[in-house]
């Protein structure tokens, strides 16, 4: 009996969590990420640089004995990276590809808050017009009358895609921007 209620409470909590988002700032825009994929938020410390990597890979940091890669989201979105300030943070995110889990840190300019965005308040991604690649967008959440871009973590931090880009950089094939 108690088990049952506990399970129900658990379930309710999970459903509740699913609608919870962390909002953060990149440049002048606000983005959101589902909190279920977020492990922790760290103060920014300069990562160890890895040579011959594309600009969106800042390097690796020591997270309690494991070497965790750090991705610069600005660079990943094709924008110039912002200067490091006191508010700069590294958000540690866990993604799953098939059965493998990958822990990756992302650099953001500042984190704002965790808030709830019910499904009814989320609009589908526009096919164009957004400031970042359309497939990076999971949806547009309405928060206090403004839209925030909810990021699709699995696409933004797609290990396979990034691996290809790092490989291209490491072997010296320069990927030219489309003319």
């Amino acid at each position, binding site marked *: 009996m108690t088990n049952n209620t506990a399970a129900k409470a658990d379930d309710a909590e999970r459903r509740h969590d699913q609608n919870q988002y962390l909002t953060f700032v990149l440049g002048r825009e606000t983005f959101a990420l589902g909190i279920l994929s977020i492990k922790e938020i760290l103060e920014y410390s300069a990562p160890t640089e*890895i040579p011959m990597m594309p*600009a969106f890979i800042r390097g690796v940091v*020591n997270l309690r004995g494991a070497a965790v890669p750090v991705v610069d989201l600005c660079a990943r979105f094709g924008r110039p990276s912002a200067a490091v300030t006191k508010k700069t943070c590294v958000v540690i995110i866990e993604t799953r590809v098939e059965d493998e889990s990958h822990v990756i840190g992302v650099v953001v300019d500042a984190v704002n808050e965790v808030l709830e965005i019910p499904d009814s308040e989320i609009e589908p991604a526009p096919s164009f017009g957004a400031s970042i690649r359309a497939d990076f967008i999971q949806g547009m959440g309405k928060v206090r009358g403004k839209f925030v871009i909810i990021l699709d973590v699995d696409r933004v931090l797609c290990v396979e895609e990034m691996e290809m880009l790092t490989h291209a950089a*490491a*072997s010296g094939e320069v990927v030219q921007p489309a003319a």
Partner: protein
Amino acid sequence: MTDAALPTFIAESRELLREMEAALLECEQGESGAEAVNSIFRAAHTIKGSSGLFGLDGIVAFTHVVESVLDRVRANSLQMDRTLAAILLECRDHIEHLVDAVADGKPDDVQLATKGESLLQKLSARAGGPATTHATATASASASASAPVAPAAGWQITVQFHTEVLRNGMDPLSFIRYLSTLGEIVELTLLTERLPAAEEFDAEACYLGFEIELASSETQQRIEGAFEFVRDDCTLQVRPKAPVASESVAEKREASDAKETKAAKNSDRSLRVDGDKLDALIDLIGELVTAGATTTITARKAGLSELNESTLRLARLVEEVRDQALKLRMVQIGPTFSRFQRIVRDVAREIGKEIRLEIGGAETELDKTLIESITDPLTHLVRNAIDHGIETAEVRRNRGKNVEGVVRLDAYHDSGSVVIEVADDGGGLKRERIIAKAMERGLITDGSSLTDGEAFALIFEPGFSTAEQVTNLSGRGVGMDVVKRNVNALRGTVELDSKEGQGTTVRIRLPLTLAIIDGFLVGVGGSSFVIPLELVEECVELGDEHRAADGDQRYINLRGQVLPFVRLREMFSIRSSASRRESIVVIRSGGKRIGIVVDDLLGEMQAVIKPLSRLFSRIRGIGGSTILGTGQLALILDVPSLLDLCLNTRQVQVAPRRALTD
């Protein structure tokens, strides 16, 4: 029996089957000593006994027949020869399949059962003669999965219940009552010697044992089955009452406690430990090493001599603990080598060559994960040696060689690494053919300037194969490059020696362990890098004249020899101005010597290797990372791939740090 013990049974059986295979192969080659036959018999016997405990009737029935044949060999009433050994090998394979079926959770495979029967027929046909009646009788009965045949007379059962049995909710009486449904209890003696004095008597504990004489025609298994539920809570002995076959008494007793027998046999006091536990321990020790380094640095800063001394003592101990822990993961390579006996035999037979496998250095130890990862490349090399290396018997005769070809596997330690050799005394590599092929494939443009070593190295290039015809074993041109890649992935190297007409030797050089290396820490700009210490030969200062002549001259005169060098700063595009002093670390790898120019030499350290994320899986020049005493990460240089990178300077010149946008 509990399911929890089943994996142990499976693991043990597989081990025994491997022993059995090795001994059978010995027999097949005509070196059958009594010891080999004994060990085959013991393996079959133990497997039979343990599977009986788990009620795996299929395995018991099949193995029993095999065992009886073996028993006759042991008693010299049957001669072990090539044919018999070959059939027994097939039987061994069948037992392995049966065990595999149990492991997969489907012990009642009809196909397997029919195959088993036909094998048994083959066996009894070979082992024929008057003395086989027993074996053949059981063989025909085995279809109905009958257990060892029981003498009809009766059974002597001795059972000692453990003290906990009542508390576990078992009533000893109910088992005795159940026994009476299997036969008639002729006599029952109560064993009371364990009864304590009245003041120590615990009313909830069971102190009783029984000696029962049961007149029954049931099998031993059924009778043991009666005690199934208290199997862990009692000591049970079931013996045939009549002293009909004294051999069989001993055998049954042994079988009833197969584990004990095994433990007694391997009296070398070894423990079976879950690999994950070891990995966790090694991880922890890795952290300990890192924390120890931090403490040493802090102590040095504090400048207290006593503190310094004690941290040094601590560091020495930690180092010892580390070495001991790493040794736990070390296993001998012998069993892996022995497995190739079978491959060599089967493959040689398939293609009609006479080949003998020689094994050396079987006691050489290396990390278990390394052994697991090296098996595939080794298999490939051995197959290559058999298929392409060793000539056919006819050719060998014409060349005046011994008709029987020899493939040799060898392992030994050499200056901080392990070397595994696969050698054959076959035709060797033909330099001209390799060069012709390489030019045809566009790998090189002119072969005349290549040294032998460089020419032979070409066969490790992707898509290279000189075999004139493709066999189903090898020769499709995939292979040697995969071998090289696999070995490189383990931080190892492959070299090849060959003399035309005399044979080929492939030498794989591997690190002793994958977890921790002794490293040499260097600094460039603000970054730190670790160079594996065993590759470092010496360090020299980079003279001003070389620094001034920056640009063209990328070599120095090191005691009369030319030493080419690379600047890590340029190679890795590290953005910092050159420091006032630079040093050259001289490293040797794969027979080449080069210098690496760095800013600072920071000294030796133990580096616990932390693998980099999959994101960096294709990065070249870097093999992993490690955590410094300060908590900072440093990158570990992968020297062989760094050398490749140097040889390909075109790629270094491309400015790599460029934003990739779309």
